[in-house]
C-alpha cells in the first residue's frame, strides 16, 4: 500500500493522463483522440501485456494480507458466479388461511372469557358489603342453578352431604363442591377488569394485531388492557392464597373452569409485558453496534482519503471518530459481558441451560462483531506523516499539471482539429476545488440546526449570515458524525469566504 503512492495507478492515457476503467476503454480512447501516433498506440498495446504480467506478479508477492491468498488473483471465479442475477424463488403464504381457522376456533373461547369478564365487572360494580345484600346482588347478575337439580358435583362426581356442601360459582352460576371451587380475591378481580393504568403504562404494547377477543371487550365495557403485578406469578398461585384474615367478603367463589379461562387470558396478557432485563441490554447493544458499523464505514472512507493526502476530511475529525468507535466498542464489550453473566449469581432462580446458552451466544456474536468490524479499523497517519502525505500529493498534482501544461504546449502546435479535441482533455482534468459539488442544504434533507439556530440579527450582511449558518451546520454535522457533509459544507464555507473577501475588496476599492 505504501509503495503505490509515488505511482499513479489505473489505466492512464500517457498523453492526457485520463484514468480509464479498462484497457479496452483506454485503447479506444487512444484510437479516437490520439490516433496520429500509431507507434505509441502499438507500444501501448504491448505495455498492457507486460503490465498485466507485472501486476499479477506483484500481487503474488504483495505483502498485504488483504489479498490473503496469492492464488486468488490467478484463478478466475467459478462460472456459476457469473450467472445472471436471480430473484428470490417462489413463496407461498398460508398466513391468512391459518389465521382464519385459528380465529374461528378461538372465538368460542374468547366470547366465553369475555362473558366472564363482563360479569366480573358488573359484580364488582357497587358490590354491597352486607353478605345478604351481596348475595342478592350476585344472583341478580348471574342466575344461579337450582340446588335441587344437582345431585353430584359435576367436576369430581361426588355426592353432596352435610360435610360436602353445595356452592355456586359466582361467574357461571353452576353448582359444585368446595374442593372444586377457587377463591378469586376482589383485588385480583379488580385488576383483571380495570384498565391498565393500575400498572405501569410503559409496558403497553401496540394491540393492532390482537384478536377479536380484545376488540369485543373494548366494545362491551370499554376495557383496554388488563395487567397485573409482575410479582404475582400465575393466577393460580394468587388464587390459592386465600386471605383468611378478612373472611369471605374479600373474594368471589368461582369454579375451576372459569378460573382456567381467566388464567389463560391473564397469562397471555402477561406475555406482552414480560420483557426481561436481557432484552433491554440487548437492544442497547444492537443500537451501539449499528452506530459503530456506520461510523466504521465513514471512518474507512476518511482513512483512505487521508492516506492519499487529500484534504477532504479533517485529520482531527477522523481521530475523534476513531475514539468514538473505540468507545462504542468498549460499550458493546461491556454490555455483552454483562449479558453473559446475567443471573448467574442468582441463587434461588438460576437461569436455565437454554438461557445461559443464549447469553453466551450473544456474547460470542458480540466478540465476533468486535473482532471483525472494529479491530480492523486501521490507525491514522500521525500529523507529521499526514503533512508529508499532503506534500507528496501536492507534488504529484503539480507534476501532473506541469506535465499537462507541457503536453498542452506541444499540442498547441498541432493542427486545429487536434486542438479542439485537446480542450476536451482540459475539461476533465481533475481539480480538487472545482469538482466539489455546490450542495445547498435545506430542511428537506432530513436534518437541520434545530438547537443551534443562528441568533444573528437579520440586518447583517447576507453573506455573513450565510456563513454563520454554515458554521452552525458544520458544528451539527460534526456532532452527528456526518463527515461527508462536513467536508462539503466546509468547502462551501471556503467559497463563501473567498467571495466575501473579494466583495469586500471591491467595495473598498469602490468606496
Amino acid at each position, binding site marked *: 500500500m505504501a509503495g503505490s503512492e509515488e505511482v499513479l495507478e489505473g489505466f492512464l492515457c500517457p498523453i492526457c493522463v485520463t484514468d480509464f476503467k479498462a484497457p479496452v476503454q483506454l485503447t479506444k480512447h487512444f484510437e479516437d483522440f490520439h490516433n496520429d501516433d500509431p507507434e505509441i498506440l502499438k507500444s501501448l498495446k504491448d505495455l498492457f501485456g507486460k503490465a498485466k504480467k507485472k501486476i499479477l506478479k506483484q500481487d503474488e508477492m504483495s505483502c498485504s494480507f488483504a489479498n490473503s491468498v496469492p492464488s*486468488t488473483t490467478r484463478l478466475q471465479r467459478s462460472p*456459476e458466479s457469473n450467472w445472471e442475477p436471480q430473484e428470490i424463488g417462489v413463496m407461498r403464504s*398460508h398466513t391468512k388461511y391459518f389465521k382464519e381457522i385459528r380465529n374461528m376456533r378461538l372465538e368460542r373461547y374468547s366470547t366465553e372469557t369475555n362473558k366472564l369478564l363482563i360479569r366480573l365487572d358488573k359484580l364488582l360494580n357497587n358490590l354491597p358489603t352486607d353478605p345478604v345484600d351481596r348475595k342478592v346482588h350476585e344472583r341478580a347478575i348471574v342466575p344461579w342453578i337450582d340446588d335441587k337439580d344437582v345431585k353430584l358435583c359435576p367436576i369430581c362426581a361426588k355426592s353432596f352431604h352435610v360435610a360436602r356442601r353445595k356452592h355456586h360459582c359466582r361467574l357461571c352460576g353452576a353448582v359444585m363442591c368446595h374442593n372444586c371451587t377457587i377463591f378469586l380475591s376482589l383485588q385480583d378481580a379488580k385488576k383483571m377488569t380495570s384498565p391498565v393504568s393500575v400498572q405501569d403504562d410503559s409496558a403497553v404494547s401496540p394491540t393492532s394485531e390482537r384478536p377479536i377477543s380484545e376488540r369485543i371487550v373494548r366494545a362491551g365495557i370499554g376495557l383496554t388492557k388488563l395487567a397485573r403485578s409482575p410479582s404475582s406469578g400465575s393466577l393460580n398461585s394468587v388464587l390459592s392464597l386465600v386471605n383468611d384474615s378478612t373472611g369471605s367478603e374479600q373474594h368471589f367463589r368461582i369454579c375451576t373452569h372459569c378460573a382456567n379461562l381467566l388464567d389463560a387470558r391473564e397469562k397471555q396478557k402477561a406475555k406482552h409485558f414480560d420483557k426481561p432485563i436481557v432484552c433491554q441490554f440487548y437492544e442497547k447493544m444492537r443500537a451501539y453496534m449499528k452506530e459503530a458499523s456506520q461510523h466504521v464505514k465513514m471512518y474507512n472512507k476518511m482513512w483512505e482519503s487521508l492516506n492519499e493526502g487529500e484534504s477532504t476530511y479533517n485529520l482531527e475529525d477522523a481521530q475523534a471518530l476513531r475514539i468514538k468507535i473505540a468507545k462504542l466498542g468498549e460499550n458493546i464489550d461491556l454490555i455483552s459481558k454483562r449479558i453473559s453473566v446475567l443471573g448467574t449469581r442468582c441463587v434461588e432462580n438460576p437461569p436455565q441451560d437454554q438461557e445461559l446458552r*443464549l447469553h453466551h*451466544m450473544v456474547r460470542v456474536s458480540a466478540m465476533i462483531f468486535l473482532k471483525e468490524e472494529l479491530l480492523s479499523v486501521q490507525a491514522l497517519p500521525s500529523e507529521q506523516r499526514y503533512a508529508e502525505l499532503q506534500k507528496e500529493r501536492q507534488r504529484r498534482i503539480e507534476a501532473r499539471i506541469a506535465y499537462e501544461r507541457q503536453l498542452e504546449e506541444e499540442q498547441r502546435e498541432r493542427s486545429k482539429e487536434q486542438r479542439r479535441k485537446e480542450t476536451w482533455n482540459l475539461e476533465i482534468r481533475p481539480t480538487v476545488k472545482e469538482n466539489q459539488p455546490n450542495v445547498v442544504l435545506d430542511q428537506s434533507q432530513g436534518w437541520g440546526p434545530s438547537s443551534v439556530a443562528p441568533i444573528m440579527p437579520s440586518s447583517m450582511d447576507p453573506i455573513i449570515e450565510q456563513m454563520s449558518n454554515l458554521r452552525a451546520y458544520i458544528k451539527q454535522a460534526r456532532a452527528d458524525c456526518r463527515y461527508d457533509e462536513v467536508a462539503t459544507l466546509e468547502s462551501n464555507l471556503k467559497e463563501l469566504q473567498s467571495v466575501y473577501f473579494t466583495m469586500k475588496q471591491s467595495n473598498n476599492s469602490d468606496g
Partner: protein
Amino acid sequence: MNLITALKFYITRMTEESGPGMKVLLMDKQTTSIVSLLYSQSEIFLKEVYLFERIDANVRNEGLKHLKCIVFIRPTKENIECLCNELRYPKYGTYYIYFSNIIAKADIKLLAESDEQEVVREVHEYYADYLAISPHLFSLGINTCSQGLLWNPVHLHRTVSGLISVLLSIKKCPYIRYQNSSEMAKRLAEKIREVLSKESNSFEFKQDSPPILLIVDRRDDPVTPLLNQWTYQAMVHELLTINNNRVNLSHVKGISKELREVVLSAEHDEFYANNLYLNFGEIGQTIKELMDEFQKKAKKHQKVESIADMKNFVETYPLFKKLSGTVSKHVTVVGELSSLVEKHHLLQVSELEQELSCQSDHSMQLQKIKELINNQQIREIDVVRLVMLYALHYEKYANNDINGLLNLLKNRGVSDKYVKLVYNILEYSGINARQNNLFDREAVAKITKKLFKGLSGVDNIYTQHTPLLNETLEDLIKGKLSLQTFPYLGSTMMSKKPQDIIVFMIGGTTYEESLTVHNLNKQNPGIKIILGGTTIHNSASFLEEIQHATSGILTKYKNNNN
C-alpha cells in the same frame, strides 16, 4: 440458477420477516443440514439468530418468552405433530413458521387449531428443501434410495419434493427427459409431472426458453463412483468423506483439538474455493506457496517486539489469524491425504483402475489385478473394486476370468460380504442394465485423447477417465441427445437447443461429475447446468447403495457363474 444464492435468499427473508430482536431457529434434522451448509455460525449471528433447536428434541423446559422463534421444517407428519405440541405449549413468544415444501391444507388446519395462545405470526412455504453443496450441485441426502432395484416409496416421495423445491426456488418449469432404460427414472419423471400439473399455479414463470430436467440413473454408469479420485474435493470425499461440508479428522494421530473436525466450505474458505477442482499435485504446489508466504509473514511476525508493535501488526493485518487457520487446516488435510495414498499404494491402484475403465487389454489387466490381489499391502476394498471394474468391463468377454479372480479373493481371506458385492454390482449394473456401451465409448474417447495429449505433452494417467455424464450432456447441449434413449415425457418436445439444464442422477452423483458439470459450464457460456443426485457418493457409500439396491432380488449371476 445459482442454488446457494437461491437458498440464501430464502433464509435471509425468513430472518428478516420477524424484525429485530433475539431469535431462535427451530429446525428438523434435514433442515439443520440445509442451513448449516449455507451459513457459518458467525454469519447466522449477524441475522440475530442465537439459538438453534431441534423440533424433535424431547427436552421440555420453561422456554424463553422474549425470543422470536423461526420454525423452518419439512412438512412431514412427525414434524407437524411436534409443531402442534410446541404451539399448544409455546416456549417462545412469537412463532414464524416456514415449511420447506408444499404442505397440505389439512395440516395447516391442524396447526391453526393448536395455536390456542395465538403465538403464530406467519405461515409460509419457502422452497429450501435440498442440500446446496455448490452453486451448481445439490443433493437430497438419501444414501440408499432403491430396494430390489425399485424405488423405496419414502425415498421417491422425498426425491420428488426435493426436485420440486429446486424448480420452485430457481423459478423454472421444465420439460422432462428421462433415461428410457431405467424404470426408476421413468417413475420419478411421471411423479414430477403429476406435481407440476397439480401445482400449475405456482409454476407459471416467464421464461425465455424452458429448461430441461434430465433424469438419469446411476446404474448406467457404475464406474465413476468406483474410481479413486485425484481432484481435491473429490479426493477428500473419497478418502476422508465429506459430510455436510465437514470432514472428520479425529482418527488422525496427534491431531490438535480444533482440527478434529474441519469445515471445507467454498463459501467461507477462499483457498478451498479456488482449489477444490485442482488435482492433487497442483494442490501440493499451492499449499507450499501458501506456507512459504505464511512463514514469510510469521518471521515478520516474530520480529515484532514490543506490545505496541504487536497491536500495530494486528491492526494492519486483521486477516492474519484467518489465514493462519486456513493454512494449518489445509496442510493437515492434504497431509492426511498423501499419507493415505502412500500407505495404501493408491497410485498403483488408481493406475490400474483407470486402465480398466478406459482401455481394453484383457490379458495384461488380468495379470495386473492378480498381482495386486496377491500384494498384501493393498487394501481389501481396493482389490475388490478392481475386480468389480474387471467384471463390469469383461462381463461378456469370452475368456473372462471373473471366477478365478473371485477365488483369489477368497484365498486372500477377503470377507464374503465383499465377494458378494462383485455379483451385486453385476446385478445392479451389468451389461443388460446399461444402455450405453460404457467401455467401448471410453476406448474411442481414449484414442482421441491420447492423440491430443500426445501433442500437448501432458498426460496424466490417473485422470484419463471422464464420466459418461459428460458425453450425455454434450449431446444434450448440441441438441443431439437420442430421443430413443432419453425420451421426452409426454408429447411436447423442445425444438430449440436447451440453455438451462437440470440433471438429476438417481442413485447418487459424484464430485467427479460435479467437476464435469463445472467444466461444461465454463466451456459453454450461456448454458447453465445444475447437477443433483439422491446423494453424493464416494466408493464406500456407493457399495452400500449397491448392496441395498440388490437386496431381495434373485441373484442370477451367481447361479450362472458357479
